[in-house]
């Protein structure tokens, strides 16, 4: 394409849209002013909106807790099964003549104990909570928010 043709088109378009130039600028300025008016209204509100950041994050955290709790429960279930199976297998192997001195009994006992540990994970987390902070575990699968009392 020749440059002269392009120049001619530009000139034609320039003449065509010349009357709109002022109107477009006015429309942009008006929109901006409306935006500021709206922003001023938003900045002046005194109460927290019900659909704000906290509400959205509450939904997100609920999903995270739900999926994380499900994954944790599944992991503990599988780990308990693995520990039980391999523990019993280690005890079985410990009775074979060629495996008498390779720690199979210890592995077997550890597997059975850890099977119970995984199967009762929540109970042990609660015991750890009592040890760490003197009270039962309060964080659960319900999405909640931290609340601060008076005196801070």
């Amino acid at each position, binding site marked *: 394409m020749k440059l002269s043709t392009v120049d001619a088109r530009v000139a034609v378009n320039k003449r065509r849209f010349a009357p709109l130039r002022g109107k477009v600028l006015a429309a942009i300025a008006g929109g901006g002013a409306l935006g500021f008016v709206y922003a001023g209204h938003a900045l*002046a509100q005194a109460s927290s909106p019900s659909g704000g950041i906290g*509400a959205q994050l509450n939904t997100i955290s609920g999903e995270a807790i739900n999926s*994380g709790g499900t994954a944790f429960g599944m992991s*503990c279930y599988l780990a308990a099964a693995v520990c039980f199976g391999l523990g019993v297998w280690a005890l079985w192997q410990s009775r074979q003549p060629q495996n008498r001195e*390779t720690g199979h009994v210890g592995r077997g006992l550890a597997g059975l104990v850890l099977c119970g540990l995984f199967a009762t994970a929540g109970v042990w987390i609660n015991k*750890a*909570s009592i040890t760490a902070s003197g009270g039962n575990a309060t964080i659960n699968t319900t999405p*909640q928010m*931290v609340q601060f009392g008076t005196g*801070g």
Partner: protein
Amino acid sequence: MQGLINFATAIGDGIAVLLPAFCYLAACGCFFFFAWTLWTWSQPHRYHHHHWHRPWVPWVSLILSGVFASFPQFLTMADVSAGTSLAVSLTSYAPTTPPNASNVLGNAPTATVVNVVTLFQHFFQAFGAACVFWAIMTWRAIVNGRINGSPTACGVQFVFGVLCINIVSVANGVVSFFQTGS
């Protein structure tokens, strides 16, 4: 000013909502790490395990799983240690109403400082709780040998977080310290 307070309060609400979720996931992760590390140590190749020469590593995670599962009580204990006895608890989500900023100016500059701090108290408290959580997570990573860092810095971050939770008491203390009049 009111808009900034509204925004800060909304951010504080977001942190206060996310923190229990993070604590839940951290408690689950710490417990699984504890039990699975013990299982791997029972295997014949345990001497090659990278935590074998630090026998306290899984037990630290067990205790921290309890800390995260009862994080509000833990923060309350820290507040008692700080001398304010501010109680931290959990509640169902409800949007926090931001305080009114129309009377921010007090009779003296010191009163203004305390007023401003009080207006942003909710954000400071939520941010402080998040600082404490992050300090514990960083300390655990250092203890486990996963990152290189300073446990002392974690302690400083922990204290900073507790001070943020009790920011109004701290502000009043600082203001009274600098008041020289009769």
